């Protein structure tokens, strides 16, 4: 029974990862629009990137990927660090970008 639960959990996580279209990253060091602009530009150069948004208030960088694509964690770390900032956390979700934008706007 325990084994079944573990397998189910792993399958569930794998499923989320495969179909994930949104990558939410906690980034430290962003204090101005130029910081956001630099990061946005870096991500928009990636073929896998569909959309990018940055929230200074939440220290959040959110990238939505094109269908069937993903960006590896190592690449995410590399991009953020090459932009001059510290990537602290990566969470993959299926949340639409619009929902995240609205949530960020409500917090302001």
């Amino acid at each position: 029974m325990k084994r079944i639960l573990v397998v189910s959990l792993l399958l569930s996580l794998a499923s989320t990862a495969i179909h994930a279209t949104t990558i939410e990253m906690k980034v430290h060091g962003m204090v101005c629009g130029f910081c956001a602009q630099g990061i946005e530009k870096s991500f928009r150069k990636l073929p896998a990137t569909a959309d990018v948004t940055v929230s200074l208030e939440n220290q959040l960088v959110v990238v939505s990927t094109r269908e069937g694509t993903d960006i590896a964690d190592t690449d995410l770390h590399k991009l953020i660090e090459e932009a001059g900032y510290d990537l602290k956390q990566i969470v993959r979700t299926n949340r639409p970008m619009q929902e995240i934008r609205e949530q960020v706007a409500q917090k302001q």
Partner: protein
Amino acid sequence: MKSTPTRFTCAFAACLFASSALARPILYSHSTTVMAEYAEDLMKDVQVTYAPGYYLAFGLGHLEFDGSGPGVEHEINFLRLNTLVKRWNFEAAQSNVFIWGGLGKSSITISADALGNTGHNHGGAVNTGQPVTFNETAGNIGGQIDYETRRFYSSFATDSQFAASFTHRMDTLQLGVAPYEHEANGLATFFIVSATKISGNLQEEETQVALLLRLFKKSFWMEAGATTDGKPQARVMITF
């Protein structure tokens, strides 16, 4: 004893390099920045820099000086390199240490009338009825440490100019506050108090205080205000 043209040239070169130190000398990777600057009775300046990485920027510029009196024209064409030595990223703050260096060729042309009016021989130049041009290579080295959040800005910068005939140093402390916390695509507003101590062998030691309003949004940055003796200053910067 330095000649008057040399003093003019070097003093304005010093002002150029020092006043060209932006709030942040490097913006972001693979960015090109164009900056224009105006300071009453002092200078007009345009420069372009490119940052191949977040830790490095290089560029060139041209300026014309206004404050040296009638019949005197000053120009400097220069190269400059800015480097980010260290950055600390905090949850909602950032601190940096920058150093920079540059080389410039300054030229000062004095009309025959101006030569005649001054009553001086300008470093040995004889008034032949023709304009006289003086050239000198000037070096520059400086550094900055800063700490900023979306509500608070602080920096201390030191900037030294030197050549065979002079030294000039400016130490600048800036403190700023924002009335609100801006978002990534929103307008940022800062009220800045800037205090600059000027020293070296070009002029009497003095301290100037300026009050500035700094605004920036997306790729546009500007700063405008005046010194406490009423001389306006303005800087505009566009990054792409």
